[in-house]
């Protein structure tokens, strides 16, 4: 597939949430938030992860960080199995992987100053020997993300959404990670601010040789920043391809429908809009076979019986669809 060793490799990741019910609190159902996801992230690339809300993309990202315990599957970071590390090793691993959150209002402790927020990582990992050294590093990090260092004694509520997101980015950068999971980092921001933050993320990637898992539900944002894109539907990856391939020649019918929903800023341009029928099914009782078949415009009998595996169709393009692979 690719020439390099993947930085992070996920195999058959599953996360089921048990629903208990009845008087005895027995487990009656599983919510299959993530249902067998496999993907590789290569050093220095940006992998976009898109899908509707509730499709399990955030859960996937959090499982990789071990913020959520996966139910099954294997996650290897630089060859080391993340799911089996504990205590000291897990803490060491957390220097290499960081996360940027969607909501810049909820992701910063309201009682800590910006300095405290950024310096916490330095304290936990003992990355600064003295108070002065820590202070210098905080100033440096703030400058890196484009904030005035003299703002470091302020509290988060004194900043705008975009500035808060920059603080969150500085916090993630403090431990000099290799991989950053960006969990919808711009979804809560104004469009003009979105562009600034995305440009910042791209600059930082170049400067510090970062690898991103970029989770979003907005395809136009992902197209801009991603090298490759994975599309998720109801806990499964249905298509992975290099960004321009995915946009030019989408192969999965779900991807086609998603792309046709991206607005094009040209009112004269007419195009065919694929409108999916129905809604995202309940992940407690996902459809049999291909999860997408009840809404798929081209579904055939086989789709209701067998789940299509993710199969390579051409260079680096993988799709999970019976009909598109067989042809």
């Amino acid at each position, binding site marked *: 597939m690719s020439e390099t060793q993947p930085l992070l490799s996920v195999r058959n990741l599953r996360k089921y949430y048990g629903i208990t019910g009845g008087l005895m609190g027995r487990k009656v159902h599983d919510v299959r938030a993530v249902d067998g996801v496999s993907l590789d992230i290569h050093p220095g690339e940006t992998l976009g992860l898109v899908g509707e809300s509730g499709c399990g993309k955030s859960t996937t990202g*959090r499982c990789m*960080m071990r*913020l959520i315990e996966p139910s099954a599957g294997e996650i290897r970071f630089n060859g080391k199995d993340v799911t089996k590390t504990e205590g000291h090793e*897990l*803490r060491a691993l*957390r*220097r290499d*992987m*960081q*996360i940027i*959150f*969607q*909501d810049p209002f*909820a*992701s*910063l*402790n*309201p*009682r*800590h100053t910006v300095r405290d927020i950024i310096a*916490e*990582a330095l304290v*936990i*990992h003992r990355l600064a020997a003295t108070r002065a050294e820590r202070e210098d590093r905080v100033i440096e990090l703030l400058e890196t993300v484009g904030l005035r260092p003299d703002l470091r004694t302020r*509290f988060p*509520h004194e900043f705008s959404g975009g500035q808060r997101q920059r603080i*969150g980015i500085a*916090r993630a950068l*403090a*431990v000099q990670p290799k991989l950053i999971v960006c969990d919808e980092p711009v979804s809560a921001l104004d469009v003009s601010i979105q562009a600034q933050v995305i440009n910042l993320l791209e600059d930082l990637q170049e400067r510090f040789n970062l690898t991103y898992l970029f989770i979003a539900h907005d395809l136009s944002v992902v197209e801009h920043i991603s090298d490759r894109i994975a599309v998720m539907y109801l806990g499964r990856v249905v298509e992975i391809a290099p960004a321009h391939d995915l946009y030019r020649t989408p192969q999965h019918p779900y991807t086609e429908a998603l792309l046709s929903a991206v607005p094009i800023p040209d009112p004269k341009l007419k195009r065919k809009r694929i409108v999916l029928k129905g809604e995202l099914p309940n992940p407690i009782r996902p459809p049999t076979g291909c999860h997408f078949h009840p809404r798929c415009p081209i579904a055939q009998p086989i789709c209701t019986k067998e789940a299509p595996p993710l199969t390579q169709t051409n260079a680096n393009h993988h799709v999970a669809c019976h009909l598109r692979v067989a042809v």
Partner: protein
Amino acid sequence: MAVLSLVVLALLILGIAIGPMLWTIPINDIDFGAQLKPPSWEHPFGTDDLGQDLLARLIHGGRISLAVGLSAMAVAISVGVAVGAVAGMARGWVDTVLMWLTDLFLSLPQLPLLLLVIYLFREQLKAIFGAEGGVFVLIVLVIGGLRWMPVARLVRAQFLSLREKEFVEAARALGASKLRLVVNHILPNALGPVIVAGTIDVAAAIIAESTLSFLGLGFPPDIPTWGRVLFDAKDYLDIAPYWALFPGAAIFLAVLSINFVGDGLRDALDPRRVP
């Protein structure tokens, strides 16, 4: 409102702290020539049925009442925060057991239990801490021990919601230990409502102590507390209403001002409010 209350509370505390130095009449100075005298220059708050000066007794009683209130609050908050924090962090069966315990305590009929405990343990504690000290420890423990449950529930609920917040998750992603999460991130953000609950507890403890004294179960009759003075006054309400009025007003003022100060404190400690 909070500032005004703070002034009132400060005056009350100042009064009972330095009062005995300025108002030197002893609390047990019996003067049968001055029984049940209404307020006058000689006795600003009047005298009781034994001719004892009420101002002196209220000053002394305030020390005990406020000390009981604050100590009982400290007991209730400590136990409540500990139980709530452990339940909220541990979840699972630990949480279930602790919440059963909380519900159990909540469903206990408090007054009969208080009476029982005081009858059972008063003598033993007297032997250890002396007459006044023994009753003090007993009352503080009993009142505090029966008031921690709302705090525990409050803290647990706060913990359950805060531990899912993204800033806590971010700290976890940075590798923060559980202790660090609780001390640095969860507890400080959970304390706002606890402070308010705490001030209400001070007020409730003062009232509870008054109730106990009123029932004749608190401190011995020769030690005046606000509640005790009120209790002694009840038989003379029609001929000496001022006797009940002054301790009642003292309790009312203390409780009200502490509640307002608590409200103010919560707002002042919230960094989101720009002063």
